[in-house]
């Protein structure tokens, strides 16, 4: 069965790299999807298999717009080592994780990029060791005295190049941290490495460009306020035409009860927009007034991907400011994986969106927000609460053409929660799907819930020059999907992450699937929901 569906790699049609002048960034590598394995055996090592996978280096303007040096600074070696020292003093995670690893090997077969590429430096421990070797050299006694003995290395250009390559082959999905006996989270190490690289002027173009756009325009896609307004008006017309219901998609509406913050891909990308339509229908059906904000028209927070606390906070502050300006009572986050992690786990720390504060900065906002609701709430929590309260009605048969499965997005699964108990983040989206659709199938147990595999595009890697890596990294998820496609005829993989949706849309065809197989949970809600006007 594997052979029939083995995809033929088609390089993207765009760039004939060889024809371009040599000054251009790295040549576009060939994109090859690995074959499905008959049994999920651990791949044999292929040293340097992904050594050619390099993201584009950020131009000086992009680095400087985010407050980093434009190009690699003089004396970067010492500065990088000093920055590492600073981070070791600021992050207990980094300090403990640099020391605690015993090289037991438990994590070695857990990373989707290792499974898809066989490159040993994509084993989590080896990825960590790229930094740990430097840590040992400069910050431990044995590393200073006997570097060879403990695998310590000087901070050299080769080491830096390896960092740039392989820390940009980590999607910060935290799967390895589930399996580590000390909870060592490679994402923390990757974030620290990225912060160090940025601090010496070696930035990643895609991520820094996006952070620049968020600050300048308000969202990752650079969609200005008027364009946003147009899009939303268009949505209202579409929904009215489709359903006969005058569902509103309001923008900057003062005094609305709910501020919805959602990834900007929801405004125009397919299939993302279908979930945005769904959120609007839910609020409409439940009679909850809500608004989007042009200032905070982006839930995503790429500050996390580069491990930079100040950037992450600056980006998050837009949401606080919008909430204060609009006077909303509740803040709700749309379908976005890392955004939900930032919102759920970090917003209270960064911006005071949450509860339980005793400082003036946070109390200002927490007094305004309605304490009867979790702040912030995930849109799935909102919808599930409404379903349980009997305030939404569904025509489940409308989804009968779909046989649905659910892909747990890594940041939601391992970096956040929904509802009142540990693991609610797994149950609530599934509960919603079962409430709105009749056909639901689970993927195999080792690939779901906290053991879920990243889509392969998270962590700031969702960029075309890394497509080969992204396709390979999707292998374990594609294998699990293929199993239930073959056995159960599954034709729809629901997920609650803008990056997952964009990544799968791009990657599914390489594995012989239709790109329209992926969609949002609220896309299913949207299909089945019965709107008041129709009754």
């Amino acid at each position: 069965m594997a052979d029939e569906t083995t995809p033929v790699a088609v390089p993207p049609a765009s760039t004939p790299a060889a024809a371009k002048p040599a000054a251009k960034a790295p040549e576009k590598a060939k994109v090859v999807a690995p074959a499905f394995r008959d049994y999920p055996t651990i791949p044999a090592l292929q040293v340097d298999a992904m050594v050619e996978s390099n993201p584009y280096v950020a131009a000086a303007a992009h680095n400087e717009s985010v407050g980093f040096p434009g190009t690699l600074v003089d004396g970067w070696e010492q500065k990088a080592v000093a920055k590492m020292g600073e981070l070791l003093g600021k992050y207990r995670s980094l300090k403990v994780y640099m020391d605690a690893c015993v090289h037991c090997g438990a994590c070695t077969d857990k990373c989707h990029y290792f499974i898809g590429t066989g490159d040993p430096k994509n084993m989590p421990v080896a990825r960590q060791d790229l930094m740990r070797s430097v840590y040992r050299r400069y910050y431990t006694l044995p590393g200073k005295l006997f570097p060879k003995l403990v695998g310590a290395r000087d901070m050299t250009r080769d080491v830096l190049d390896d960092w740039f390559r392989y820390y940009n082959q980590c999607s910060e999905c935290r799967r390895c941290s589930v399996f580590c006996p000390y909870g060592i989270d490679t994402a923390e190490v990757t974030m620290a490495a990225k912060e160090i690289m940025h601090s010496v002027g070696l930035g990643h173009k895609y991520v820094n460009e996006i952070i620049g756009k968020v600050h300048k325009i308000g969202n990752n896609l650079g969609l200005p306020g008027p364009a946003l307004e147009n899009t939303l008006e268009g949505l209202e017309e579409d929904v009215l035409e489709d359903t006969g219901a005058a569902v509103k998609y309001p923008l900057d509406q003062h005094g609305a009860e709910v501020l919805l913050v959602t990834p900007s891909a929801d405004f125009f990308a397919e299939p993302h927009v279908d979930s945005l339509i769904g959120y609007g229908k839910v609020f409409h059906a439940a009679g909850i007034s809500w608004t989007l904000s042009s200032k905070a028209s982006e839930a995503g927070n790429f500050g996390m991907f580069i491990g930079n606390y100040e950037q992450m906070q600056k980006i998050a502050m837009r949401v606080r400011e919008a909430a204060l300006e609009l006077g909303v009572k509740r803040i709700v986050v749309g379908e976005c994986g890392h955004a939900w992690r930032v919102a759920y786990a970090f917003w209270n720390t960064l911006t005071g969106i949450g509860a339980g504060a005793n400082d003036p900065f946070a109390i200002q906002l927490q007094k305004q927000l309605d304490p009867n609701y979790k702040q912030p709430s995930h849109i799935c929590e909102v919808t599930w609460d409404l379903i349980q309260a009997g305030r939404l009605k569904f025509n489940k048969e409308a989804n009968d053409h779909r046989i649905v499965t659910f892909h747990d997005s890594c940041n939601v699964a391992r970096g956040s929660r929904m509802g009142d108990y540990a693991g609610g983040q797994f149950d609530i989206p599934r509960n919603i799907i079962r409430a709105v659709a009749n056909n639901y199938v689970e993927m195999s147990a080792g690939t779901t819930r906290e053991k879920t595999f990243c889509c392969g595009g998270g962590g700031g890697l969702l960029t075309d020059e890394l497509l080969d890596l992204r396709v390979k990294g999707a292998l374990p998820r594609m294998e699990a999907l293929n199993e239930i496609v073959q056995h159960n005829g599954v034709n729809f993989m629901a997920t609650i992450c803008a990056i997952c949706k964009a990544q799968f849309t791009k990657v599914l065809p390489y594995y012989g699937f239709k790109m329209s197989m992926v969609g949002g949970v609220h896309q299913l809600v949207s299909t089945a929901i019965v709107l008041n006007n129709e009754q």
Partner: protein
Amino acid sequence: MSLVFAILFYAATLILAGGVAYRIYDYARTPAPLKIPTTPAPTTSGGVAFRMFREVVFFESLFKSNLWIWALGWLFHVGLALVLLRHLRYFTEPVNFIIAFIQPFGMYAGFAMAAGLAGLWARRFLVERIRYISTPSDHLMLALLLGIAVTGLLMKFVMHTDIVAVKTFFLGLMVFEINPLPVHPGLYLHLGMVVLLMIVFPVSKLLHAPGVFFSPTRNQVDNPRETRHLAPWAAKFEAKN
């Protein structure tokens, strides 16, 4: 030799205790600025204590991860724990009844410890992925531990030493008296390696022992929406805003 070992043990004890105490202080004073428990995570501190207990006593995450490493690692650690407890009889008079009770188990725990270590070491040669990540120090650490276990077992079962004299030596050290240590090459080797282990402990991967208790992904309560968590260095950013 008695004097040499006395000095070595005093020095090693100071280094071990001082070094580990410093590490613990260093971990404790370093803030964890963000809530990063690996979820699903306990929502109460009691739950966190229970999670940590399962992690430290049963190696829960390792069990989920890899049964071979778990079995060998757990065998070694439990063996080591029993052996260490058994060795308390060299430092106490009279011997606590619990220590006396585990004495027979402790004897065989030495074999479990050695078997676990041998298995873990074999993996470093036999499994390609583990071979790739192993450094010389990883091998030496296993050699050291295995050396301690084997010399200990040899003295217990093959070439006995005068353990009454050994006990007198250690009880003496505790009150700053130096009594004669039996002349025995196995004993010298055993004690020498123990001294070395004590010295490298605070500067090596053996720090995983205190480290695990400070791992934010395991020791944090999952309640970021309910309580505000702020590190001192991060609080400063709010003044600007």
